[in-house]
């Protein structure tokens, strides 16, 4: 059982990327590179499913730990997973093959480079969710900027340069403070090993500043309200596949970071700043929902809805209740599937009609009936209809919020209504109504590969919507453990004050 399964999971995509880099495709279309990439990413998906199968869901410890000496004397390369991170790993390995299948439609130039960028990106994303050392985490967290910058910049839309720069610099600016915090933690406690830090704890006097430094990074990445402006730009300009990766996985890094690091390492500071997070989350939920309501560009609308959904996630995490945190994790998984699906759906019509403006569409139901059906499922998933994954996440988060603060919960509930409003209105304007635009009539319904990718997303959204048990089982023990540690630290600090 000493096979380094996590490292292979992390490295496999990179090996695939190197393979593609050094092989020449016989035809000019790079079809074979695509099959290699698909094969690698599917193999990785199967590997991660195997991991889930052998994973002991009742244990609260980190599993499959690998610990190697890396920076001699300072820092070890340490990876391991618990019930929370394994879901994100599977989400990543699940979304990547879907992305690779859908490059067909959206990427017209330099397909080979694009596949390499996506595979490298997968390595970094899995690395983020597996790392159990702050420095290793930072390394993967930041390294993801490079391929994403290129994906937006090379294959993006008209304002791609501006968006790519904004994305890169915003995220970098947020993250450098986290680096200061990580190094400070090293000198305060003598280690950056997350497990050891959980045991040792960090002295109360340092926690507030360190929490803020981590927060600055995660808030930008989430993105939370005042620093969310890079997201609509990045989403709109990125190619469809880039948007999918960004929405489905990159945004989840921050939510994951909040649970793993902010709450896990700085419980006292998290308690102090709970109100700040509530307020920012509520503004994100209400304000960006209103903004989303008024968007004319489909991708922008979905981007703003992402900000609102991530507002629910941060709210749920900082309720510090079992339901709230479980709901947040569930919401992140759900949003990962739903937003990926929505961006792919927008990609479908964009590829046929070359515009994302909502008012250029209408009456698609009579031209593309199959499309209308899947798009409806995703819309309902996004607005949180019972029976889809979206419902369970939001419901649990609101339950957690009601337990802690009724006012906050009530305001957040408004967000659910607004969410329904903008999603349904979008659906109405695009799918129903008259066909105003004669150009639309020539549009063809879904192609085979689109049916594959979209139905691959419909199935889990509905399945886990009706039967969330497998996911809940996996996270329950770990969330409980996180909360126990959190409460233990709080009680200890109160006791030491008296």
């Amino acid at each position, binding site marked *: 059982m000493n096979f380094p399964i996590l490292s292979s999971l992390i490295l496999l995509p990179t090996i695939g990327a190197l393979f593609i880099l050094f092989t020449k495709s016989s035809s000019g279309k790079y079809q074979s590179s695509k099959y290699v990439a698909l094969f690698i990413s599917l193999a990785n998906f199967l590997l991660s499913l195997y991991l889930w199968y052998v994973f002991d869901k009742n244990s609260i410890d980190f599993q499959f730990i690998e610990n190697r000496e890396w920076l001699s004397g300072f820092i070890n390369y340490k990876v391991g997973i618990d019930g929370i991170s394994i879901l994100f790993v599977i989400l990543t390995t699940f979304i990547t093959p879907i992305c690779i299948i859908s490059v067909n439609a959206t990427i017209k130039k330099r397909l080979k480079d694009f596949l390499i960028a996506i595979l490298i990106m997968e390595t970094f994303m899995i690395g983020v969710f597996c790392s159990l050392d702050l420095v290793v985490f930072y390394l993967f967290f930041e390294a993801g900027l490079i391929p994403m910058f290129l994906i937006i910049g090379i294959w993006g839309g008209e304002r791609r340069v501006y968006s790519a720069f904004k994305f*890169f610099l915003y995220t970098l600016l947020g993250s450098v403070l986290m680096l200061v915090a990580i190094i400070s933690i090293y000198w305060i406690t003598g280690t950056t090993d997350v497990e050891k830090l959980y045991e040792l704890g960090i002295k109360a006097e340092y926690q507030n500043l360190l929490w803020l430094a981590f927060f600055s990074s995660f808030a930008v990445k989430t993105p939370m309200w005042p620093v969310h402006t890079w997201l609509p730009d990045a989403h709109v300009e990125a190619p469809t596949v880039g948007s999918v990766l960004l929405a489905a996985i990159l945004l989840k890094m921050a939510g994951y970071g909040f649970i793993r690091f902010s709450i896990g390492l700085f419980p006292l500071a998290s308690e102090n700043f709970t109100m700040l997070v509530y307020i920012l989350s509520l503004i994100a939920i209400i304000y960006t929902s209103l903004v989303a309501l008024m968007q004319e560009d489909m991708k922008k609308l979905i981007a703003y809805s992402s900000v609102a959904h991530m507002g629910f996630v941060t709210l749920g995490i900082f309720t510090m209740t079992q339901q709230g945190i479980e709901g947040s994790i569930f919401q992140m998984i759900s949003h990962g599937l739903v937003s990926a699906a929505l961006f792919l759906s927008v990609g479908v019509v964009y590829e046929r009609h070359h515009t994302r403006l909502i008012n250029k569409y209408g009456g698609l139901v009579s031209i593309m009936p199959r499309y209308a059906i899947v798009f409806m499922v995703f819309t309902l998933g996004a607005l949180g209809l019972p029976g889809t994954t979206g419902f369970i996440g939001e419901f649990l988060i609101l339950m957690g919020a009601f337990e802690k603060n009724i006012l906050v919960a009530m305001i957040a509930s408004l967000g659910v209504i607004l969410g329904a409003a903008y999603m349904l209105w979008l659906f109405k304007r695009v799918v129903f109504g008259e066909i105003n635009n004669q150009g639309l009539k020539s549009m063809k319904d879904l192609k085979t590969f689109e049916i594959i990718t979209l139905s691959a997303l419909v199935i889990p959204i509905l399945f886990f919507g009706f039967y969330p048990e497998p996911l809940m089982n996996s996270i329950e023990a770990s969330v409980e453990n996180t909360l126990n540690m959190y409460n233990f630290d709080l009680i200890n600090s109160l006791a030491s004050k008296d």
Partner: protein
Amino acid sequence: MENFQYILPEIFISVSIMLFLLVGVFKKNSASLIYNLSNISLVILLALIINLSSLDTIYLFNNSYLIDNLSNYMKIILVGSGIFVMLTGSKYIQVINLNKIEYPILILSSILGMMIMISSNDLIVFYMGLELQSLALYVLSSFNRDNLLSTESGLKYFVLSALSSGLLLYGCSLTYGFSESTNFDQILINSTEFNYGTTFGIVFILVGLAFKISAVPFHMWAPDVYQGSPTSVTLFFAILPKIAALSVFIKFLYTPFANMNDQWQTIIVFISIASMIFGAVAAIGQKNLKRLIAYSSISHMGYALAGLATVSNQGIQSSITYISIYLVMNLAFFSCLFMLKRNDKYYENIEDLSGLSKKHPILSFSLLIVLFSLAGIPPLAGFFAKFYIFLAVIEQSMYFLAIVGLLATVVAAFYYLRIIKIIYFDPEKEEYETSHNLGLKITLAISTIFILAYFIYPSGITEIVSKITMI
């Protein structure tokens, strides 16, 4: 007489210089021969230094010359990068008609001067070494004498450098006057009590050294000299004098002036912060790649000095690691620059890189790696360089320095990204020549792989450097 076996490298290189000079004078058209011979002699030199590096600290010539871990390591990276500088530049100087016998000889003498600087343990020996390398560099920077920019840069460098040498000398004389010795160890012993004379001496010496390392506010010469000099000389400027000057910085701060760290720490912190910010901001508007790399090197020196400001072994080691990684990044960057050749003309404006990635995927990928590494983005080597520096800085609780430094990296990231944008996002231009000489290709391959794969085994350099202790 037994002292001589320890300075065999210096003797060897001096003899080679004189021998090559004779060959050059008596044998016609021997420029290429001498160039190759010089390269070979540098390789032998490297072997000789490595051979000596197993020994412990040795004082020579009445304690005026010192061979220790610091000097050995610095000499190794100095000569090692010297070899690569020669390898990458060989084609370039032929193309722009600079292949004269003096060129390699001047480079060798300058390296000799730097080796003397690095090993010096006495003000007079130090100054001799400094002037030997400076004189060679004055000529080198104006080597392309028919070019207006090159002559300008030579003159500018000469005037400003002479001024700084004057200040440095004044500082040395003040130090000598108040501490009654020119020997570094003796100065340390004699300067236990605070006095204004030595303090002024430190300030003047630091000014002179800051000039050599092109740190703000003594950086004015760098952009012009970098741009005006032939590119192969710019590469030399960007790496070797910095290694020597940093080594001397470490030596001065931690041997003769070790007791006065509260006097110089503020100065170093100021120079460091000013260089980091200025280098990052001023590079934004640049159009010429050589000018840009000049500003970038100013800000990189700021980070290297930040390590020295910590007054800890950890800090010194981080600075040395930083300069080691910095030199590899520069080698890679300039190798790419040497490849921008079309019809015997070299291109050096940022605009010339437009759309490079379409026709030259490998070259652009190397540039991408180098630029992200210069910006300090993980998992590339440049990140680790900065990481060690900040590890040391934060250990001493100098949070202000750390935060300013990291914010400056964000500003700096902007202009590196701008180059990447031009390479990858912009429309393509004419193709460049694709046949390059082997030395250039090897250098680029080695340095890029080093930068890319550094994270796999990052302890390598740290373990070697950790032997260097000054406190």
